[in-house]
């Protein structure tokens, strides 16, 4: 998936839905989730449709996940060593 004109020098370990994942330091969490196959991040309120990131700019609020229990838009969060991320099941 990666382009060929960049080198990612350092990695961090994050936990996503119980799995430990290596992600390049500085990557946007929404992107980490996406490239690791976590496309459904939450369910919509009435009809419970699966939703994932949409605008990636912090506007649509579709990409919210739990980061250390706190509701966070994944596109506004950079991965950090040790964060525990959960997709939202409600």
């Amino acid at each position, binding site marked *: *998936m*990666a*382009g*060929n*004109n*960049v*080198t*990612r*020098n*350092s990695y961090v370990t994050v936990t996503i839905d119980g799995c430990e994942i290596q992600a*390049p*330091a*500085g*990557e*946007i969490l929404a*992107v980490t989730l*996406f*490239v690791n196959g976590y*496309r*459904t*991040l939450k369910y*919509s*309120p*009435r*009809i419970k*449709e*699966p*939703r*994932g*990131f*949409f*605008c*990636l*700019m*912090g*506007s*649509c*609020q*579709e990409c*919210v996940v739990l980061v250390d229990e*706190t*509701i*966070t838009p994944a596109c*506004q969060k*950079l991965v950090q060593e040790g964060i525990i991320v959960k997709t939202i099941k409600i």
Partner: protein
Amino acid sequence: MSKVIDDNVQKIDVVVLGAGPAGVAAATIASEHGADVAIIDENISGGGQIYRAPPKEYETHDSFKSPESYEGDRQRNYLSNSKVKTYFNYRVWSISQELVVSTISANGLKSWRPKALILANGALERIIPFPGWTLPGVMGLAACTILLKSQFVLPGRSTVVAGCGPLLMSVAYAIVKAGGNVSAIVDLSSKSEWVRVFPKMLSRPDLLLQGMKWLWKLKNEGIKIYNGYTVTKSEKDNDRLAITIAPFNHSGVNTDPKFQKLVEGECLAIGHGLIPSTEITRLLKAKHKYDLLKGGWVPVIDDEFRTSIPNVFIAGDASGISGAFSAVHKGRIAGLSALRDLNMISLKESKHKINNERNLLNKTENFGQAAAYLMRSRPELIKTITAETIVCRCEDVFRAEIDETIVSGAVDMNQLKAWTRCGMGPCQGRTCADSIEAILTSVVGSRELAGQWTGRAPLRPIPIEQIIGDYSYSDIPIPESAPL
């Protein structure tokens, strides 16, 4: 770190909201003329969306460099070498009628009271709903650009690129350049529309040439380009998306099945143009007008980029879609106007410098206007919003419910909101307002009659943990209790 409410409202000459090209231009010029300036941006560094920087941890190779990345770096360096105080990762959540700017960040709450406020908060992407637009894997063109250019990630093994405007080719080319696969390009604009804007694009031969180079490369890869087509449906097909497209022109969408085509891709990147972001100007109750070729609702401004609110200026795409190059000049004009109104430069100097910028602006605007024409709102597109299509994603409101509410008497946007909950969710209508305005307009007759949603704070959802900080129960200032 102890998080506190910074009770002190910091007085300052100028606050600039947004560190994209317009914001950086406004902030730096004001600062160069002696103003005490703070620039605030929710991202980690300047550049806005167009010049969004890759993570500093990444090592970018020379093959990555492009005129865009150079310009982005140049602007970021210019800003950091200036005397402008930068506040990155700060989110503005409210601006009072007295222009007190309230922000929240990992450090808690902080407010400024500027003498002049310059808004450079850019634009949003317009995406007109269609069945299946909410499926994971469907993303905006801007989102796709961020993936490619600042995260170096391909959207998928194959991508369908759809919508209108220059972003379309830019994204398709970027995918191909990164070694990815574009299944199809689905362009709302007919070939004759492109021909119509060609003369305006001649004003920037370098950009025109770049565009033609992209087009040539895409055709060379054998990528099918559909002109005058729109996406009418997206369905999940195992791990891919089956996307139905149909012919589109000024009279609308041709849903005759025999003209429909099916394209497939793992992802769909779609965007129907850019809309100036009016959440701040609506919050401040500035006057707006609807200007189709500027992207839709724009704040009413004078020719020195003053809004109808005293001491509030606006620049860049937020003042009307015209692109990154125009943004710089608009930013400088807004900065100079602010300096003039603060009496920090003479009338003579401001007139002279603004004039220079305006001449430069006029040179760049032509290309921007061509792009804005291609990206304009197309009322006929609401036909793709079928009765069972979700329109308000935050609250799961269907087109059928919206239509029913209009029939039962909701005649303006605010009333429609009260009855359907559209726009009451976390995105405050940023995603669906334009589509719903278009639907309502098709019944009531004009955008002006339909109106806009009243702007409200907070501008973005605020993490409660950040707003409460550390406190004890006795810290809470309790006003007088209610009578028995």
